[in-house]
């Protein structure tokens, strides 16, 4: 192994894609368990149960452990959401990887052109970016990063990460 990192494929997460006016979304999803929405683009807000990522213009992702998926769906009620907002279950659309350890940033430098320096990509940084040529979500976590890619690319991503750390 070239770098001091641990790379692992994570279990399925519950994910909801939210698009539309922020106030309309907040009005639709009212739950005491939910954290506030992030106040800066490309950052996340986390509480013990949920994470909210601000990933684009009028675009957020909500994430939780898969065990809380039903709760998440109840909160967001995708099929009944008003026409102004889009609420779509995307839990199965993503596969997550964690790259952790002292050299995690080295692997991310190989994988992505994003500037992941703390001054540009803060501790709660999250962004869609190019990861080994594929659209992927990069999230800074304790001691490293998480990568989420469209699930069809999961095997390829694992292959790439293994090669990067060969």
């Amino acid at each position, binding site marked *: 192994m070239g770098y001091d990192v641990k790379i692992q494929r994570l279990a399925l997460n519950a994910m909801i894609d939210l698009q539309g006016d922020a106030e309309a979304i907040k009005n639709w999803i009212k739950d005491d368990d939910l954290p506030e929405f992030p106040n800066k683009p490309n950052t996340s807000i986390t509480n013990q149960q949920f994470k909210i990522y601000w990933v684009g213009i009028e675009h957020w992702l909500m994430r939780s452990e898969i065990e809380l998926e039903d709760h998440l769906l109840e909160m967001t009620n995708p099929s009944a959401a008003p026409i102004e907002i889009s609420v779509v279950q995307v839990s199965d*659309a993503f596969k997550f990887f964690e790259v952790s350890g002292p050299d995690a940033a080295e692997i991310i430098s190989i994988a992505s052109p994003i500037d992941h320096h703390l001054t540009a990509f803060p501790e709660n940084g999250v962004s869609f970016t190019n990861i080994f040529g594929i659209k992927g979500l990069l999230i800074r976590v304790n001691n490293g990063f998480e990568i989420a890619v469209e699930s*069809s690319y999961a095997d390829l991503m694992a292959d790439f990460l293994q090669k990067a750390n060969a």
Partner: protein
Amino acid sequence: MSKDLFRQTKGGLIDRNQTITFQFNDTTYQGYSGDSLASALMANGIYLTARSFKYHRPRGIVGSGYEEPSSLVELVGDEESGNQPITRVQIRPGLNARSVNCWPSPNFDLMAINQYISKLIPAAFYYKTFKWPNWHFFEPSIRRAAGLASAPNKTHHQGHYETRNAHCDLLIVGAGPAGLIAALQAARSGARVILADDGLESGGSLLSQHLKIGGKEAIDWVRETTASLDAMDNVTRLTEATVWAYREHNLLVITERSPATPNVFQRSWRVRAKQVLIATGAIERNLVFANNDRPGVMMASAIQSYVNRYAVKPGKRAVLFANNSSIYAVARDLKASGVELVAVIDSRSSVNDLPEDLQDIHVFRNFVVEQCHGTKHLSAITIKNAATGETTKIVCDLLGVSGGWNPTVHLFSQSRGKVKYDANLATFIPGEAVQACQCIGSASAIFTLQQVMEDAVQKTLQALDLDPGNAILLPPLEPEAEYSIEALWHVDLNESLCSKSFIDIQNDVTLSDVHLAMREGFDAVEHVKRYTTAGMGIDQGKTGNLNVIGAIALKNGCEPDEVGTTTFRSPFVPIEFGALTGIREGSVYLPYRHTSITQWNKDHGAKMYESGARWRRPGYYPRSDELFQTTVNRESRLVREGLAVYDGAPLGKFEIKGPDALKLIDMLYTNNFDNLKVGMGRYGLMLNEDGIIFDDGVTFKLADNHYFMSTSTGNADTVNQHMEFFLQTHRPDWRVKITTITTQWANATLCGPKAREMMQALGTDIDLSNEAFPFMAMREGKVGGFQARVCRVSFTGELSFEINVRSRDSLALWETIMEVGKPFNISPVGSESNHVLRVEKGFLSLGHEADGTTTPQDLGLNWAMSKTKTDYIGKRANEIRLAENPSRWQLVGLLPDDPKELVDESAPITPGGRRESSEGFVTACVWSVVHNRVIALALLENGQHRMDETIYIRRKDHVVTAKVTAPCFYDVKGQLLRS
């Protein structure tokens, strides 16, 4: 052989405690840690290191760094690679190198015969000579003879290549005095700095000169400075790292030759820098005179480097020849090394800058070197008084030449910055920058250390937008003489000498070649370059380009700035292909995508291959010893007669929602969607702006202004971009949101007459009757215990149910289907049988019938073109196309006269089968299990009006005749799929 034969007894930056054994041309030598291959060979008395590219003349070492034009080597063994300047190869245990352009050795080279026929092979001779019977007749042997090395045929054993990305506030290219002081200034201001240098260690020219900085040896200042930089978290200092490309938006590429990371053989960095300082120094020019390529003729700065840095004596009796003042520092160091300095030949008419301490040197003012003597090594020179023509012969074995200094503007020029000619310095210097970059130090034509450092600090402050008060304190420096020069582009040719004056040593281009090009009308600098190859290849004109420009100027009677420069191209130094690709090789060379049942498919013997958008899908599932066609026939028959299941997961899927969603759908598709009912879907065609079919698919209405769109597999990403582009650029006011759900939903498609029975067997709460669940409807409910969206669409022409479930449920659903389907003899089918079935139905396939040239009308899809919609993407262009040419190539069916003859897809159709312009081509040809014969689809000129006509398909060795039919061979009324 002894490593100390030509080594000084002390000094240098080599580690004499570490002896290293290496091989060169199958002979074992020794050197010291810190030696380059060039210095180690020189210390061993090896002066003949290569043969020239074209004439196979003896060649030695000319430079000391990346500018080396003469001696390239190939590395063999585990590090196998070519195009390595001998001066950039560090010796290390196990190093095995050999010379290029010679066989069997540089000392005895059979191809040296070229020297004797050189008059027959001047520049561009092959353009004129190898015309008859055909260039390609000669090409293979010329290619074998040309080239600077053979390509490696195996991978490295010592790790892999890596490419990575980096960002910084300031990238400093070059860690000489300017680069180091700039890095120190920037780093202390807190900026994120990357400092990259081509050399084994930082220091640049300071490593080769005896200078004092702050009262200490320059090397001590270098090491203190680098230690300070290394201690700062905001600095990345790279050595043996060449910045070789400057792209748009301040993207620069660095390749690190020996990264410290275990298993990484070479590493390329793609650096996005906010600001760039180019501190690449200057490259010394060669001087052009007869036989100036003899081993023993070297750049003066290289001699200085060898005697100071490597403690090598490059010769015993030396002469220096220059047109500028920098030669006297070399003279001083040469004297100090113990090499006998016989004379300095200074071409300048008046020399006022001879240092006080060198008054004892014999200086020939206003003289030039007319010719070198010797065959495989320099033995003497003839010098000539420029005023009187009087000549004198001087015995010597080393000649150092300096034609002046060119700022290394390659990267600056690559950044699209303009260079301008400075007559006082007789060189091109950086002009106006186009990107956020500046040249500093010698790269900006500043040549004294004091000025170099002041310039570097000032421009660093500018680059970082810092107040001048933040400038760091410069160390005290010793006074230096100002640089002065008188241009000498070449010594006048003396035809009577019958010797060659090389202007580009690497490409074996002589002054006569340049004159020949100009005589033949190729007198622009870019034409001269192409005619003669001067400045091409890995050299990129480092030592010779300006002399070419000067020679053209002299011949034309103009100034060099009127001639201009050629284009400086990347890479600045040779770069291995592996360093460009990094880890993208082997299993990830072609990206791939898998569905949830990919492993199941592999476990069940499916032949998997790319089927668009990087998806690896099952092509067919052969049983034991089944042949391809047998398998495809079996699978196709199964769908027509029984029941099969197909992995349709890769189909593109989007959820589209918002108050303006219907407007978007109507703008994308050619047909109307405004009367679509909830729970129903509609087939639609998307056109591009040119009115050509771009994609097709089915879109279901989930609710008002809420849709579930499916697209072709191959175009899913492109359709997404198409929609986003339209919304973001044409209709940013429309409130529509698109969510990609291609991999959220997996899809198992049951197809065949028994599909409904199978659905019932699986168990579902959906009413499957044709009345409750008609063709093109979508229903949600439980199927086999899984929550599903079931769609009644068909790509095969049979009754079909597309069962969409969450991807996590896909494998379980698939296994349930296989288990429950056993009584129905269910079997999975692949994309090959799907292809057969869709051809039987005459359904279009992207890439076949919809090949980027066809309109819906060409394919008989006029019914899908709304006559009432005022607009949709591609409408106007489509109408114009049809108006201009109503008899376009149109979709038809074909029945070959020989029912067993399969025709290649894309085979041309020509009038009478003659070899003339085609009137169409075969888009698909399959064995039909329904008709038990070959059927085909084709695009044929005015085809819709040529039914029953016989057409002619050209194959490689014969012509196939076929009858034109309607492009549907099965269930023309579509009753089965609606059943």
